[in-house]
């Protein structure tokens, strides 16, 4: 190739232009993230090492007293840490068969309709739908019906079971969709190949179908689990005062007792837990799906 400065210049220029386009394309999202995610996060991080002002709110300081005080909300943490994974798991157990049916068994012309039916409830606010459950489970709902047939004094509302039900109901689509996508993408010939090699339907399901849909399962699971870590509405409406979540603790601390620094410390801890959940989930699905990288969410 003949030496010369000629080729280098246009190349650098086009590279620059490419970078500029990339930057412009990314700018709106980046701006959004900085204003609505990074800045609030920094503020919360600063709050969390401060002190509560005498009349409530924040007062500058540098202390880890708020973090040391975390055990005061141990129950909320405990409830959240138990119900979030249990809720996500319950969601998964209900969602997998549905996603499996939709992706592999449903007749073609029904598939879109069924998918729509799963997504449509999302168009109504979760608040409304959870209120509906409040009535269904409340004294004048199912217990009243059961009283007719002689089953008296059944308490459904304000129990952990009611919260679990609300969680499964509210988050089901978020679990179904990623699993559906991973099953839909599954090459059907792999299932035939497995059968051809002598695998019974059960071993084909365990060895191929389930295995190859695990990235979708992990995505759904971590998505639901992280949202559940910050859940506030369902425990409030269906759990009464009894099933107290971190989300409820945060509302209480920020809005009622106005202890912003303590609330911030709890929030930061919650974020860290979420990040750990994400990293672990990502690790697992990367390993499960072979060497290839998997992007969660």
């Amino acid at each position, binding site marked *: 190739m003949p030496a010369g400065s000629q080729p280098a210049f246009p190349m650098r220029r086009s590279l620059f232009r490419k970078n500029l386009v990339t930057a412009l394309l990314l700018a709106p999202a980046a701006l959004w993230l900085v204003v609505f995610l990074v800045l609030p996060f920094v503020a919360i991080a600063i709050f969390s090492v401060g002190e509560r002002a005498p009349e409530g709110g924040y007062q500058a300081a540098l202390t880890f007293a708020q973090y040391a005080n975390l055990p005061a909300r141990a129950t909320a943490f405990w409830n959240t840490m138990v119900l979030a994974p249990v809720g996500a798991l319950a969601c998964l157990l209900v969602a997998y068969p549905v996603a499996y049916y939709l992706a592999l068994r449903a007749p073609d012309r029904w598939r879109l309709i069924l998918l729509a039916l799963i997504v449509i409830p999302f168009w109504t606010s979760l608040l409304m739908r959870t209120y509906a459950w409040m009535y269904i489970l409340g004294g004048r709902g199912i217990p009243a019906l059961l009283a007719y047939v002689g089953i008296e004094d059944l308490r459904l509302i304000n129990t952990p079971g009611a919260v679990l039900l609300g969680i499964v109901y509210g988050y089901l689509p978020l679990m179904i969709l990623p699993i559906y996508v991973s099953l839909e993408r599954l*090459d059907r010939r*792999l299932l*035939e*190949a497995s059968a*051809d*090699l002598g695998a*019974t339907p059960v071993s084909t399901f365990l060895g191929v179908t389930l295995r190859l849909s695990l990235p979708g399962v992990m995505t759904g699971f971590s998505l639901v689990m992280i949202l559940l870590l910050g859940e506030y509405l369902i425990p409030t409406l269906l759990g009464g005062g009894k099933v107290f979540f971190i989300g409820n603790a945060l509302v209480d601390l920020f809005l009622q007792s106005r202890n912003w620094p303590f609330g911030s410390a709890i929030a930061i801890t919650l974020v860290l837990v979420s990040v750990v959940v994400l990293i672990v989930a990502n690790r697992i699905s990367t390993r*499960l799906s*072979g060497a290839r990288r998997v992007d969660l969410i």
Partner: protein
Amino acid sequence: MTAVPDIEFRAVTKRYGAVTAVSGIDLAIPPSAFVALLGPSGCGKTTCLRMIGGFEQPSEGQVLIRGRDMAGTPPYRRPVNMVFQQYALFPHLDVEENISYGLRQARPRLSSREISQRAGEALSMVQLAGYGRRKIHELSGGQQQRVALARALVNKPAVLLLDEPLAALDKKLRTDMQIELQNLQREIGITFVLVTHDQEEALSMSDFVCVMNGGRVVQLGQPSEIYDEPADLFVADFVGKTNLLSGTVAGLSGDLVDVALADGTVIAARKRVPLSRGEAVSVSLRPESLSLSAPGGGSLKGIVRNRIFLGSTAEYAIEVQGIGSLLAKADHVIGQGNLFQPGEPVAIGFAAGAPLAFPHANNNGTNQREDQNAEILS
């Protein structure tokens, strides 16, 4: 062929809704043979293979494997294995795990020592020793092909089914794999059923060719038989190149018929089915059965329109007045080669017994392969 056939179809029909993919096939595939299912796209080859594998159930009739009716037997209980068209290797397993997949399904369970030993043997059989720990996506297309082959053969099936296994490979690799497949089949001695729409591949690789068309089997025979004695016009046309000349039966004399061609020339042709005087026929004349000489002798006269010199042979497109363009193929002997030039008049002769007459309704008076031949030489 007195032994029990490895695969037998008895009046098998397969319908998909209104589409009849396979209609009334009777077929016995002899044991320990390399058999090619050959036919144009959509003729039902894959459907036949999938009925043997158990992925489709015949709408009517029976499929037997080694004499046993397979109705109601699911794929995982059939003594056959399949090499899928796009290989269908498990992406989450490495090469060795893919190959040992079938062995792990065996009941009673095989010891892990036996599994890894047999997987190792299968790997060396397809010349992939040392590749066991590779991921599937780290293999080339040809290597994936071999893994698919090993994964099927390691189970010691009674019959190996291959659905266009070489279609995705480039020409050089395909030729190598054709030879390798043939060698493997001879070594192992089980029946291979290979689906292909490439007639050259079918002729070169197999002991028997089963030609299919429109959901039916038109001919089952050895490659030379298929080529030399095609059962009907479709086979003559589909397998190998040929010239098809339209004419009418002018006279009958024993095994032969005299056919009057469009230009009035009468040639003697062999027949495969009874023909009657006056019947419209197509006469198949293979390009290599035509001999060219200087004007004077021969049965037909024409003018060379085009020539392709291929080294050992030369192909000519020859314009024959009233008949159309004929394709001729002549051997080329070094030193003796006086190639005919385009524009030169030639006489065309052929050996007695080379022309084959088939009943044909669509008599338009010219070489029906004209377009195709012109295409080949343009």
